[in-house]
């Protein structure tokens, strides 16, 4: 119950309004939480399989690359790759998913993947670089999905806290106070009537 509140009719009306508002907010937030949860659950499996797949694939690519590098010699490799022709950048747009802003990445690429001539480099290097170029696409998808999950998770946590605060604290508090005030009001009304009756009796007996 809210302490130090005046048990007046005004206060009662005000509280009733606030209770209604809180109940409406509670219902809305609950719906939001459920929908966010649904979205998250739907994405979990997808991300998990994607993540495992990517880790495996990246490992094979990296192994191939390391072998090629060992074949060519570290110095040669560095020389061949240090000035890339390719320039990659990502365009981030925001998507609104249940009021959570999630990023969407779109890659923009200029130039070719092989920045070197064919003279001093091995074919394995070409193969692993071309593989990696294709692979970067799935890395971007993974980045997007993982970020979305992170953001959704935070939002769900926040929404859940709000729902719980309304459900277990604010709404019961309002209900209790409303009850207390209306009891107090009826009590004063009753005592008023009794007083009037008494006065009437007094007057009559004179």
């Amino acid at each position, binding site marked *: 119950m809210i302490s130090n509140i005046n048990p007046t009719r005004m206060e009662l009306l005000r509280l009733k309004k606030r209770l209604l508002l809180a109940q409406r907010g509670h219902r809305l937030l609950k719906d939001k939480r459920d929908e966010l949860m649904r979205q998250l659950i739907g994405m979990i499996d997808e991300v*998990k399989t994607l993540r495992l797949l990517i880790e495996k694939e990246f*490992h094979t*690519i990296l192994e191939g690359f390391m072998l090629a590098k060992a074949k060519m010699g570290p110095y040669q490799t560095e020389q061949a790759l240090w000035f890339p022709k390719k320039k*990659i950048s990502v365009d981030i747009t925001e998507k609104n998913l249940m009021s959570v802003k999630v990023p969407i990445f779109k890659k923009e690429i200029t130039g070719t993947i092989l920045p070197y001539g064919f003279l001093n480099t091995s074919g394995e290097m070409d193969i692993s670089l071309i593989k*990696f170029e294709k692979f970067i696409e799935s*890395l971007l998808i993974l980045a*997007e999905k993982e970020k979305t*999950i992170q953001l959704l*998770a*935070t939002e769900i946590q926040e929404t859940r806290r709000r729902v719980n605060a309304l459900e277990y604290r604010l709404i019961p508090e309002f209900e209790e106070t409303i009850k207390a005030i209306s009891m107090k009001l009826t009590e004063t009304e009753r005592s008023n009537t009794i007083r009037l009756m008494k006065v009437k009796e007094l007057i009559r007996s004179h």
Partner: protein
Amino acid sequence: MNTNIAAMGEKDIMLIFKAVGADVFPVRDINKASSMLKKIARENYGIIFITETIASKLDSVIKEYAEMVKPSIVVIPGLGEKSNYAIEVLRNAIIKASGTDVF
């Protein structure tokens, strides 16, 4: 918003990212890695790839960026032993959200 891609980790792995045109930041001294990551994150990078071995040591810094839209920090496996760091991060996020381990 147009942003670049950064990669951070062991020098050997960085070479392959360099080839696709990402900006690379090889880590030589692990103690300097956290200030390096903070610096990178302040710049205009939308995605930062970071190798697992480094990421597991920078856990607290990475968590700071988990709730921001930009940058996205993506953990990639390194050459050494797999440590499942990325999966754990996701699992924790989901436990935080749902209260149960559904991952």
